[in-house]
C-alpha cells in the first residue's frame, strides 16, 4: 500500500497536528526522538522514504493510547501496521529481540505439514478432549516456557491453571495437538502472507474439533481471532477470553473461591483493554475472591500503560524505562501485580531482572491467581 493510500485508509489527513498523540505516547516520553505526530506528518508532507526508513515505526507498541485519544480519529495503530508492511517490502525491518527465534517459529508454523507435539504439558490430572463444544486455545505458552524460564516465568502454569479451572466447573476442553501460533506478531510486523496461512490453518483445525466456543488466556490471540482473522477467513464459533468466561460463571454461581489474604493490582493488557474494551470482567473475577484487595494503579483501564514492547521488536532501554515506571506504579498500589497477558508477564518480569534492580513486585498471571483461589494451585 502506498503511503498516500495509507494516509487515506487511516484518515491521517484529518490530523490537526495538535500533538495529543505524542503527548500521550509512553515512548515519546522517554525517547525524545520518537513522535507519532511527526511520523504522520512525514506521510502527509510527502517524506515517504524517510518515514519507511525510520526505525521509529518499529518502536511503536501499538498500544492504542494515541488512537483512542486522537481528536481527529486518526488510526495511528493501523497506520503503523500498514507502514511496517510497506517498509518490509522496501527491505526495512525492526530489530528483533531474541535473535529472531520467535518470528522464525511463527513462520515455520505456516507450513501445513508441520508435525508438532504440543501436549507434553498436559499432565494426568488435567482432563482434556479431542472433540467437544469448548476449546481452549493455548497459543505460544509452550514456547514461552522454554524461552523465559530463566527469568522466572513459567508460562505453562497459565495453560495448566486454565484447564484446571475449566475442569473444576465440569468442562473438559478440547486442546489441539497441532494448533498454530495465532500469527499476531506476523500480522503486526507486516508479514501478511504467512499470517494468512496461519489464520486459515487454525480455523480449519478448530472446525475439525466441532468446537462452538473458543476460550483464550492470551489477549493477543483473542484480539487476532476476533478482529484480524475475519479479513481472511470466516469463523462460525464464539470467541471469549477466560476472564469474560469466568465472570459469567460467577454470575451463574458456578465458582467457589477459597480465601486469599492479599492486596493485588491489575495490569490491563493493551489488547484486552483498549483494543477490545474488556476492562470489567477480570476485575470482577479478581474482586470476587474472598480476602483479596484490588487496588488500582495510577494508570488503569483506558489510561493503562503498555508493558513496554510488542512483537518482540525494538525492545531497548526505552522499553525498560517504561517497564520500570510501570512496576513502580504497581508497587505503589500493591506488592502483587496480576496481568491477563503472558507477554506482559514476560516483559515486566524481564525488567525486574535488569542490572539496576527495583523494588520487588510479584507478577502473577490472572488464571494462575484464579486457580489458586479455587484451591487448585498446588497440584503439579
Amino acid at each position, binding site marked *: 500500500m502506498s503511503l498516500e493510500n495509507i494516509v487515506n485508509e487511516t484518515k491521517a489527513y484529518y490530523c490537526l497536528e495538535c500533538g495529543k498523540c505524542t503527548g500521550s505516547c509512553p515512548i515519546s516520553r522517554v525517547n525524545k526522538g520518537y513522535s507519532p505526530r511527526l511520523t504522520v*506528518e512525514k506521510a502527509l508532507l510527502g517524506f515517504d522514504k524517510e518515514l519507511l526508513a525510520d526505525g521509529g515505526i518499529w518502536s511503536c507498541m501499538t498500544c492504542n493510547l494515541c488512537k483512542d485519544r486522537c481528536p481527529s480519529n486518526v488510526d495511528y495503530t493501523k497506520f503503523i501496521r500498514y507502514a511496517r508492511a510497506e517498509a518490509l517490502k522496501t527491505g526495512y525491518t525492526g530489530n528483533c529481540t531474541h535473535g529472531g527465534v520467535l518470528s522464525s517459529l511463527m513462520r515455520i508454523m505456516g507450513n501445513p505439514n508441520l508435525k508438532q507435539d504440543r501436549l507434553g504439558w498436559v499432565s494426568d490430572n488435567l482432563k482434556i478432549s479431542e472433540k467437544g463444544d469448548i476449546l481452549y486455545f493455548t497459543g505460544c505458552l509452550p514456547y514461552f516456557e522454554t524461552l523465559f524460564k530463566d527469568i522466572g516465568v513459567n508460562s505453562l502454569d497459565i495453560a495448566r491453571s486454565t484447564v484446571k479451572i475449566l475442569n473444576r466447573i465440569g468442562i473438559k476442553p478440547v486442546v489441539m495437538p497441532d494448533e498454530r501460533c495465532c500469527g499476531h506478531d506476523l500480522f503486526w510486523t507486516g508479514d501478511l502472507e504467512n499470517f494468512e496461512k496461519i489464520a486459515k490453518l487454525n480455523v480449519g483445525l478448530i472446525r475439525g474439533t466441532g468446537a462452538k466456543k473458543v476460550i483464550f488466556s492470551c489477549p493477543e490471540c483473542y484480539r487476532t481471532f476476533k478482529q484480524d482473522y475475519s479479513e481472511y477467513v470466516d469463523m462460525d464459533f464464539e470467541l471469549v477470553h477466560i476472564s469474560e468466561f469466568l465472570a459469567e460463571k460467577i454470575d451463574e454461581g458456578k465458582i467457589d473461591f477459597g480465601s486469599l489474604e492479599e492486596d493485588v493490582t491489575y495490569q490491563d493488557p493493551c489488547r484486552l483493554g483498549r483494543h477490545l474494551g474488556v476492562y470489567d470482567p477480570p476485575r470482577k473475577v479478581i474482586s470476587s475472591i474472598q480476602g483479596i484487595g484490588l487496588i488500582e494503579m495510577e494508570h488503569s483501564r483506558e489510561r493503562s500503560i503498555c508493558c513496554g514492547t510488542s512483537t518482540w521488536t525494538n525492545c531497548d532501554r526505552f522499553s525498560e524505562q517504561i517497564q520500570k515506571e510501570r512496576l513502580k506504579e504497581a508497587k505503589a498500589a500493591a506488592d502483587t501485580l496480576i496481568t491477563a497477558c503472558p507477554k506482559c508477564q514476560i516483559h515486566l518480569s524481564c525488567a525486574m531482572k535488569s542490572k539496576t534492580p527495583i523494588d520487588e513486585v510479584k507478577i502473577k498471571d490472572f488464571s494462575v491467581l484464579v486457580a489458586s483461589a479455587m484451591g487448585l494451585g498446588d497440584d503439579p
Partner: protein
Amino acid sequence: MEEKEIRIGVFICHCGTNIGGSVDVPAVVEYAKHLPNVVHAERNLYTCADDGLTAIKNAIKQHKLNRVIVASCTPRTHEPLFRSTCEEAGLNKYLFEFVNIREHCSWVHMKDTEGATEKTKELVRMGVARATLLEPQEEMKIDVEQSAMVIGGGIAGITAAKTLANQGFDVYLVEKEAVLGGMLRNLYRLFPTGEDSLDSLQPSIAAVEGHEKIKVFSSCELKEVKGYIGNFDVTLLREGKEVNFKVGTIIVATGAMEFEPKGHYGYGKYDHVITQMQLEKLLKDGQLKKSDSVVMIQCVGAKGEEVSYCSRICCMVAIKNAMLIKEINPDADIHILHNDIQAYGAEYEELYNKAREMGIRFIKYTPESPPCVTMDGEKLKVEVYNELFGEQFMLGTDLVVLSTPLVQHQGGVEISKLLRVPLGKDKFFFEAHVKLRPVDFATDGIFLCGTAHGPAEVAESVSQALAAASGAGIPLSRGFVQIEAISVKVDLEACIGCGFCVEMCPYQALDMVDGKLEIIEALCKGCGTCVATCPTGALEQRHYQNNQIISQIKSIFHPVIE
C-alpha cells in the same frame, strides 16, 4: 419654582434582615424625624411590598407630602417602582429621592451595627438635603417620522431595508454605485450552499427594487444629515441635484473593502501573485488557467502592524476557493500557509476537515519568519518554514493567492464624519457597547450592520442587518420617543460661546450656532460632562442641579438637626 412649604416623607426599609440585621432602623427613623423639612418618617419591613407602597401613598395624602425619600436598596432595580407609586398618589416622580442603604451600607458593614447605623443616618441626611431642592420635571415626547434610511446597498443594507419595509415602514435605500449587491457581486460561489453569489442575491435585489415601500437611490451620494432621532433631515446628491427627505432612523451598512497587499509577497511585481478577490473574479469569469500547484498565504497585512486584527473570514474564503480549484483540477497541489486557521463554529470546522480530506495541505508558518515568494525561471517559488514540522519547505507553484483582511474604505470614513458617529481603532464603525449593544451607535436613532461593523460573512451580515432593523424599527413602531427629564439647560447670558462643551459632549447633543449654544434635548443623556466643562457655569442639568448636589455634599459635614 413655586415657593411652597417643603414637606418630606422618609420611608426606611428593613429589607427583612438585609438592612434591619445590621442597622438600627428605629433609631434612624427617630433621627430622620428631626431633620429639616421632614414631616413624616416611618419604617417598613419591605417598602417595596404591597403594604409598603400603600403606606407611601397614604402618607403623601395624609401628611401632604411634596417630597418622598425611600432609603432601601438600589435604584437600578427599584426606582421605577417607587417613582410610579408617587405618580399614582399625584406627586411628580422627579420629587422622589432614592437613598441606597443596603449595597452602600448594610451589606458592606454587616458586623458593625453602630457604624452602619451612623452611616445610614448620614446617607438619609444627604438624601433630605437633596430632596429639599428637587424640582418637578416634565418629560419630553418627540414624534417620530415613520421612515428609515439605509445607507449602503450590499446584502446587509438590502436585508435591513426589506425587513423594515415588510413591517410597513417607508425606507430610503441609498447606494453610491449604480447597482445594488455590494461586495457579493464580485464573488464566485458561496459557502456552504455552493450557490453562485450573484444568482443567490438576485431575489433579494428584486424584492427590494420592486417593493412599494422602498425607494432605491442608486448612484447617489449622501451630502448632509441633520437632526436627531425621529427627525433626521437628509440631503442626497443625485446627478448633481439635491434630493431631500426626512427619516426617523438611520442604518449604516456601508460595507468594507479588501486590503491591497502592495509590497507583500511580490504582489504587483509578479503576475501570478493575486488576492483572493482577484481569484474569485478569475473563477467567476472562467479565466483561471489550469494550475497544478497553488499556494495561498493567510494573514497578509493582518494581525500585524498594518492591520492589527484578524479578519475573521479569510481562512474560510481560502479554504472554499482551494476546494473550488480542486473541483476543477482534482490533481492540483494546494498548500495553505497559515498562522492559525479560523474555522470557528460547526460548519466551518467541517469544511476545514473536508478540505484536508480532499488533499489540501496546511502549513503553519510563524509571523516572525514569514514565507518568501520569489521567481524561479518561469515558476513562482515559495519558501516557508513549517513551524510544526521544523523544516524549511520549498514549494514551486503556478499561482500564489494572498488572503488579505477587509478594511474600512474612504466612503465609510466620510459617512462617519457626516453622521458624527465614531470609528474604532480598527477604523470600522464603533458600536455603543461591544457586548450588549452590538448594532447601536451611542447616538440614538442610528444603527449599524454588515462589514461596516467589521469583517463578517453573509449570514452574520444578514443577522446584523435584521438586528439593526429591530433597533431602527422600535421608535418607528412606537411613533414617539420619550426623553428622561435630566437634560442640560443653558443660561445664554452666562454662555461665552467658547464651545468646549460641544467638543466634550459624547452624544452630539450640543451645537454652536452663530456663537450661541443650541441644545438638542432629544440627544442629551444627562451625563453632565458639559456642566463640568463649562468655565462660566452657564450650564445646569435638570434633576442634578449644582445646588442639589452641593447641598447634598455639604450636609455630610454639617449635620443640622432641628
